[in-house]
């Protein structure tokens, strides 16, 4: 084997983990918000990301400057989220969990195949401004892709804004109330329907932001790209505490750290089992603490 215990190695891995974790956290938050208000595991979350990436690409090809492209992508994601809520999810609100789950699955497949029809299945490059993709060398041998910094910063801003929103503003509090107990919230005069819509809009906007960093990281977009992010977001939510925003954020960082750690220290013979180990950890966690690390969520055992 080789020298992997050096402090430089660990600092490098920490940087990687923070960057990756920020991306996962942003993706997971949108999923958690939707679950909180509707008890729906929205598999179409990933396809929303994919579509917002394509919207961004279309705007980019029109020659718009990058900040407008980013804004357009986020807006596109938010609009798509609103449309989804109206058309596909509102009519089946209150249905058993499995129906909601299946429906979101179907919406995801539909959106993905629509993209295949319209955009062709091949990968397309998504050129990002150099500011996002350059690599800094702060000291020594360390390399810091600036995208990690941007993701971390973006996550701080967005999540901070969200935290302020749900704790200090009336609408945010209404959302939390509706999430905890829709009936009581309605009795208190909160329009649960509007609040649900808002949750979708904000959650999807977060996804739109997340996908920008994701795409800067990987460089290409293709219709199937949404599948992996939604899976990661899902796992992150469960790890941290399903259906809660702090849980999603914590879960995102923990998942990022776990993946980087395993990839880094496992000997090459077993490093291929990395994903299996991540999921095994997930299952163990569910058994021991179904509410996730933060201990939220239903913990009923039968």
């Amino acid at each position: 084997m080789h020298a992997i215990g050096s402090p430089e190695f660990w600092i490098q891995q920490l940087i990687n983990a923070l960057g990756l974790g920020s991306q996962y956290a942003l993706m997971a938050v949108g999923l958690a918000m939707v679950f909180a208000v509707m008890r729906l595991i929205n598999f179409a979350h990933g396809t929303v990301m994919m579509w917002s990436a394509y919207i961004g690409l279309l705007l980019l090809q029109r020659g718009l400057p990058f900040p407008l492209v980013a804004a357009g992508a986020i807006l596109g994601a938010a609009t798509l989220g609103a449309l989804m809520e109206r058309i596909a999810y509102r009519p089946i609100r209150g249905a058993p969990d499995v129906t909601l789950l299946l429906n979101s699955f179907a919406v995801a497949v539909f959106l993905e195949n629509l993209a295949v029809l319209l955009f062709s299945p091949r990968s397309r490059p998504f050129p990002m401004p150099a500011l996002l993709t350059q690599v800094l060398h702060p000291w020594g041998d360390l390399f810091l892709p600036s995208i990690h910094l941007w993701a971390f910063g973006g996550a701080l801003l967005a999540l901070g804004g969200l935290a302020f929103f749900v704790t200090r503003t009336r609408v945010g509090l209404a959302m939390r109330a509706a999430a905890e107990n829709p009936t009581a919230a309605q009795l208190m005069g909160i329009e649960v329907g509007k609040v649900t819509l808002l949750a979708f809009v904000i959650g999807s906007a977060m996804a739109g932001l997340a996908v920008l960093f994701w795409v800067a990281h990987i460089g290409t977009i293709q219709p199937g790209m949404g599948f992996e992010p939604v899976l990661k977001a899902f796992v992150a939510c469960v790890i941290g505490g399903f259906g809660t925003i702090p849980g999603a954020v914590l879960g995102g960082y923990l998942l990022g750290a776990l993946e980087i750690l395993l990839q880094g220290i496992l000997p090459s013979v077993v490093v291929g089992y990395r994903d299996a180990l991540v999921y095994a950890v997930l299952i163990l966690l569910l058994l021991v603490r179904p509410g996730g690390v933060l201990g939220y969520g239903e913990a009923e055992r039968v």
Partner: protein
Amino acid sequence: MGKQSGSEMKILPGRRVEIWLGRSLGGLLLLGLYLLIERGGNAYLQRLTILFLINVMLVVSLNLFTGFTGVFSLGHIGFMALGAYASAILTMPVAMKAVNLPNLPLPLASIALPFLPALLLGGLTTMIIALLIGIPILRLSGHFVAVATLGFLIITRVVLINAEGFTRGTRTFTGVPPYTTLGWTALWALFNVYVAWRLKHSTLGLQLLAARDDPWGARGVGVAIGRVRLIAFGISAFFTGVAGGLWAHFLTAFSPNAFYFSKTFEIIVMMIVGGMGSVTGSVLGTLLVMSVTELLRNLEPGVAVGSFTLGPLYGLSQIGLAVLLILLTAFRRQGLLGDREFRLEATIERLGDWVRKARFSIKAPSAREADPLINELISKLSKR
């Protein structure tokens, strides 16, 4: 009221005939269908039928667990994979094993079993693994089980990719003897449906359904929910594993990619369409979905509309399936049959009633006619 109403338990002599007629008719129909396809010489139809029967096994088994318990298993295709690889490793001729799987441990490398024992062993191995993971997992609730089973699916895939000595990793697993025939799959599918049916109408089935609809109430009457679910999980996994083995010996070449999300989605859709909790529903649902998919697929190269061609529309069958599912969850959540079963006998009974009414002007006795006391009461009341 001590009097019997006309529709009570006493089975009229005619009814017995009808029940037997229904059952034998159904059996004859199936046999006739089977012979038609087997002898028909249409290889394309035969292939579709074999795939259909394997899918029926997968869907019925999934429904046996998910439909009856209300617990969503997203990892069942992992069982299919285990059954496929296990039985394929067992049947592969020794000479081919030396070439394809040089690192296989000696006891496995030196045997080659015939089809049935390999299928059974594959199914049993799958069942044992299911019971082992079921013990911890099934104690969770709601979507946590779904998440855990999802994790199982992914773990299975990762293990298959990495355990190269057994599975050749991502490289195509070839050299599987083509043992699967229409006869084998028909027999197994029939057996599977029969077991599922008997299970549903047994005490165990009732306990499962009770646990699904009202867990606390079921607990209250003494149903051991964890144990009952585990049994269903095990049986379901067994048949899924056997289905995997049949599939493996049908395609004769496969890789871990075949046992992932698209197959999972496929069988879940079929189950939903048929109705979660209905055995015959699963069969009908599979039939409907496969028919629609195949029909749409044949339209993909292009549809002639007037003088020009519309298309090609690649991806039409996938989109069609997604739209079908969305419409279904919106309009008819319970699928085709919901919880009920399609019984040929019931249809024959209704037919019998109609025949009786029409030909012999004999009405099936109704409550009013059979009970003069009620009649009197009614006439007295209507005179007021």
